[in-house]
């Protein structure tokens, strides 16, 4: 055993990084297929002590999202940078971890008289679960609307989780990835309460907190994260924000069409979204209007005021392309070669 006699690092030291890795997700192309969710689960949380965790998740917005009602659970900072108290999501909030009566229905000859049924990890029939409100959305006929919102840890530039950890177990790597040192974590869950995105998950068997590790063993080999790489919708881009040749830089910094979710939480998140351009709404005479179905106020509630500027740019560029002209931005968003999306992270896994 080593003598522990080091002086305690400052939060500033723990939050410092040389560069910042970032992800862009184009919500116009996400089809809610959950390939990203499954890719992540297979790689990192397909364990008996982690079935309730989805480090990567896709939920229908507007809705309860994932973890359930995370937007009402506090954490993050107010406008002056003061920390805000937060609540801990329950196992059910985290989507539960159902088991099914497969054996009974499929192997015991009961397929005609027994239904396949889920059982909650807490016992009994489930109260809520992952994707419980899938595709419900909002709005009245003929203008219903929703969009898919894929989420993972934002590897924030001002991570509340790092700030909150009483053990100083959470830190940013040089590339901006935020990690929880599993040897130092004692499971106090101050980080879970503090993360306004509720992207830290408690492992009750280990009594440690866990979160998205940005597939760092892959990054170290120039391989994109599993969620980004497995996306069949080509919604995803990743790279360093300061790399002017990267698609993330172009979409976030140059064209300013990719913006963070809930910037008002004050953590400077590094997952950016190309906001959804929804279909034109019908008026009461069933005539198409020039208003999008997703109300401005709804988009603003997720992405802040910046969403209007981003959408205006996107609509104008789309119009150019539609009328036979050129749009460098639309070409970037189409990205015909997948390699163009991932900067230096284009190596194959294996």
């Amino acid at each position, binding site marked *: 055993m080593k*003598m522990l006699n080091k002086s305690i690092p400052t939060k500033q030291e723990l939050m410092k990084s040389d560069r910042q890795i970032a992800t862009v997700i184009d919500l116009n192309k996400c089809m809610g297929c959950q390939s990203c969710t499954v890719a992540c689960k297979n790689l990192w949380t397909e364990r008996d002590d982690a079935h309730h965790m989805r480090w990567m998740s896709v939920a229908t917005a507007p809705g309860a999202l994932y973890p359930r009602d995370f937007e009402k659970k506090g954490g993050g900072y107010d406008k002056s940078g003061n920390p805000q108290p937060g609540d801990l999501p329950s196992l059910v909030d985290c989507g539960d971890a159902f088991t099914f009566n497969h054996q009974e229905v499929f192997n015991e000859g009961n397929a005609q008289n027994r239904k396949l049924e889920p059982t909650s990890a807490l016992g009994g029939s489930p109260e809520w679960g992952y994707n419980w409100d899938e595709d419900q959305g909002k709005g009245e006929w003929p203008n219903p609307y929703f969009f898919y919102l894929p989420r993972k840890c934002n590897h924030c530039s001002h991570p509340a989780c790092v700030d*909150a950890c009483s053990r100083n177990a959470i830190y940013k790597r040089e590339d901006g990835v935020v990690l929880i040192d599993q040897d130092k974590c004692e499971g106090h869950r101050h980080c879970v309460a503090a993360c306004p995105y509720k992207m830290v998950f408690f492992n009750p068997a280990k*009594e440690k907190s866990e979160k998205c590790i940005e597939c760092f063993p892959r990054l170290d080999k120039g391989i994109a994260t599993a969620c980004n790489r497995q996306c069949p919708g080509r919604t995803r881009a990743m790279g360093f924000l300061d790399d002017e040749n990267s698609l993330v830089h172009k979409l976030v910094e140059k064209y300013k069409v990719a913006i963070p979710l809930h910037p008002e939480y004050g953590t400077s998140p590094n997952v950016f979204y190309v906001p959804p351009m929804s279909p034109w709404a019908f008026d009461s005479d069933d005539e198409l209007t020039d208003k999008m179905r997703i109300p401005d106020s709804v988009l603003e509630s997720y992405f802040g005021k910046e969403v209007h500027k981003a959408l205006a740019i996107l609509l104008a560029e789309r119009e150019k392309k539609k009328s036979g002209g050129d749009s460098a931005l639309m070409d970037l968003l189409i990205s015909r070669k997948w390699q163009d999306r991932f900067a230096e992270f284009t190596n194959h896994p294996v």
Partner: protein
Amino acid sequence: MKVPYINKQSDHFLDPHNELWGQSGAGQFDLVPTPITMVEHLSTFMAMSTEHGKVDQIESRIAHNGKKISVHLSWEDKTRNDEIRDLDQFVDGVAVLFPLTDQADPMTMGDEKNPVNAWFWRANMAEPFDVIAHGFGSSQRRSGKELGLSVASVHENGRWSVVFQRALRAGMFSDRQVSFAPDKVAGISFAVWDGGNDDRSAQKSVSVEWEPLEIEA
């Protein structure tokens, strides 16, 4: 507080209800919520707590049999929180703290030059931890079992009773484990976590000063 010599086998002491505990005088100690601004440097989020540390008193009896020292603790806690079934649950716990130097401050869990040693029990664990700390946030949990620390606990009538037991003299980690000797004055302080109140980390009840121990020959 006096630590009498009681001529009984060690395992008798590990029974919180054993009548021998009637022979050692009980001390009542006031506990206060950790003054949470003291840990603001470790976590501004943790330091927002206003609800922690509701247990305000602990009763302690300490005795030895020449080989082992046993610390009997009991406090009121109406709810028994001894498992983490859901992600938002915390467990009950208790710790006794000992200074390893004359200058160690119990309120800060020592400092870089003045470590403290603690015995730490949590209601969901069969074995206790032996903890070494050089100030808030630096505590290191070590296997109590490997370091010769035993524990027994019962929850009855809305009270926890916990007994820690260890050899009077520290073993191989003697530089970082407290040692007791007859006639030598040592100090002790207490900490209690109420899981039902979401107590954890520095969010706990503490006694503010070292209580001197007089170990009788």
